[in-house]
């Protein structure tokens, strides 16, 4: 049993929308990348984990506690960034963070200041007037301020500029080192490749791939055997293209073309359109 367990989770919205018999488990200290095209069921799954929705069938547990019944207990040690961030618009950013701190029953500001500095956030304006990126930063601070052991992040870098995306990736790597369990949905391959131990790809509410990043890539290896004029050119070719010279036929070279994660994702994403 892992820290986050999703067992046969089903929610049928009709018209093949929803999630169906979803099974996965995230162990302690693992960073899990949750990927899939728009409308595949990522956010629906996350809403179940957060206890916003009740499982129609199956169950989800975090740390052995039921995500629906024991939501408040689970939330003590959980940080969450919603896919669509909606704050109390009339509040100022700083007032909002102060509100959350007190609302959560935190004794002090926790990591708030450090995080504000890290993301060069100016929280003094009204949230309503802030740009998407600014709001996202506030969402990040709100999710990490109480230094939770478990993080559920729904497209955490949407709206951030590349520099801030990098800072976010750094933050995730640090948290990973500190032993945090993280579930992160994303559309950014680089981000996922850098941070995630394992990747689950969901499509039309069903898990279509679940493995670590290397294995996923290894599964999609294409090999070519190239026959060249003579042994010498073969040797050069092998050197230039990172190939292996055939032991018997010395003028033949085998090269393997690794697909990038991006290509693999597109492969999984695209299947839907082919249907």
């Amino acid at each position, binding site marked *: 049993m892992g820290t986050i367990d999703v067992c046969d989770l089903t929610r049928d919205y009709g018209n093949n929308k929803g999630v169906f018999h979803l099974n996965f488990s995230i162990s302690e200290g693992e960073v899990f990348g949750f990927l899939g095209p728009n409308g595949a069921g990522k956010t629906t799954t996350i809403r179940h984990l957060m206890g916003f929705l009740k499982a129609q069938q199956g169950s989800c547990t975090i740390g052995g506690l039921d995500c629906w019944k024991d*939501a408040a207990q689970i939330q003590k040690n959980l940080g969450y960034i*919603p896919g669509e961030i*909606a*704050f109390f618009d009339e509040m100022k950013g700083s007032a909002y963070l102060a509100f959350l701190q007190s609302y*959560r*029953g935190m004794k002090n500001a926790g990591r708030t200041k450090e995080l504000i500095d890290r993301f060069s956030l100016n929280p003094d304006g009204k949230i309503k007037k802030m740009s998407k990126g600014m709001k996202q930063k506030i969402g990040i601070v709100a999710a990490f301020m109480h230094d939770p052991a478990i993080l559920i992040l729904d497209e955490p870098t949407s709206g951030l500029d590349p520099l801030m995306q990098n800072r976010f990736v750094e933050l995730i790597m640090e948290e990973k080192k500190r032993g945090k369990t993280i579930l992160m949905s994303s559309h950014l391959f680089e981000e996922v490749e850098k941070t995630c131990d394992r990747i689950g790809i969901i499509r039309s509410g069903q898990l279509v791939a679940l493995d670590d990043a290397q294995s996923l890539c290894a599964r999609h290896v294409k090999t070519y055997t190239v026959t060249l004029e003579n042994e010498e050119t073969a040797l050069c070719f092998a050197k230039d293209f990172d190939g292996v010279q055939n032991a018997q036929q010395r003028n033949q070279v085998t090269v393997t073309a690794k697909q990038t994660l991006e290509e693999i994702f597109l492969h999984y994403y695209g299947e839907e359109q082919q249907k």
Partner: protein
Amino acid sequence: MNRTLYKKEMKGSFKLLLIFAGILTMYITMIVGMYDPDLSDAIRQFEKLMPDLMAAVGMTGGNDTLGGFLSSYLYGMIMIVFPMVYSIIRANGLAAKYVDRGSMAFLLAAPVKRVTIAVTQLAALISGIVLLLIYCTVLEYTAAQIMFPGELPFAQLIRLNAGLLCLQLFIGAFCFLCSCIFNESKHSVAVSAGVTAFMYVLQMLANMGGKLENIKHATFFTLFRPEGLLLANTSAWIGAAVLFFSAVCFSVAAIVIFKRKEMQV
């Protein structure tokens, strides 16, 4: 109850409370000032000229004391409708609006039980209503004491407003129930405002008397009887008690629904 959330919501109610307090101040001072112990002729003439309309808004004199005067001219419409509008707006803002907008996610994503959230929001709504009515009571009494010293017995006013509080709690709890049932602001407002306004229209029709009087059995406003409360009639107290008890039932239902409902936030 979560104190931080309660404080935030009371702050959020403040502006609206101020506006409604302002409107009520204007009406209360005006109507108290209109009272003439010797002859409330002008209004009686209105009554003679258009009895149906005056009856519809509950303005049927008959009682010559200041209490009686206020019960017909203030508690027929003004003291009912304005706090009611406050409840409709605020109840929607305390639950349905957050779910609709998605900001409820942040309230749920914290170690605070759903029941606690619902109780806090309801407490903020009720506090607003109580504050508004306390303000009205103080204002009415002060205005009466200044303009007509000794004409308005304090006990009478307290009875009147205690009954009114039961009615307003009933309306508030009903609006909060709507706010907890619906996930969209517009549905919550449509039902809470629609039902209460329709009930009030029925009350107006019933007040016009004749055959229409039977309509009074179809509206909860009948349970609020200002004239009866002035005289401390048992039936008026029973009406208020029924309203209060129903308010408690609506509140419990609202909290249970909020606890169990699924939120797409």
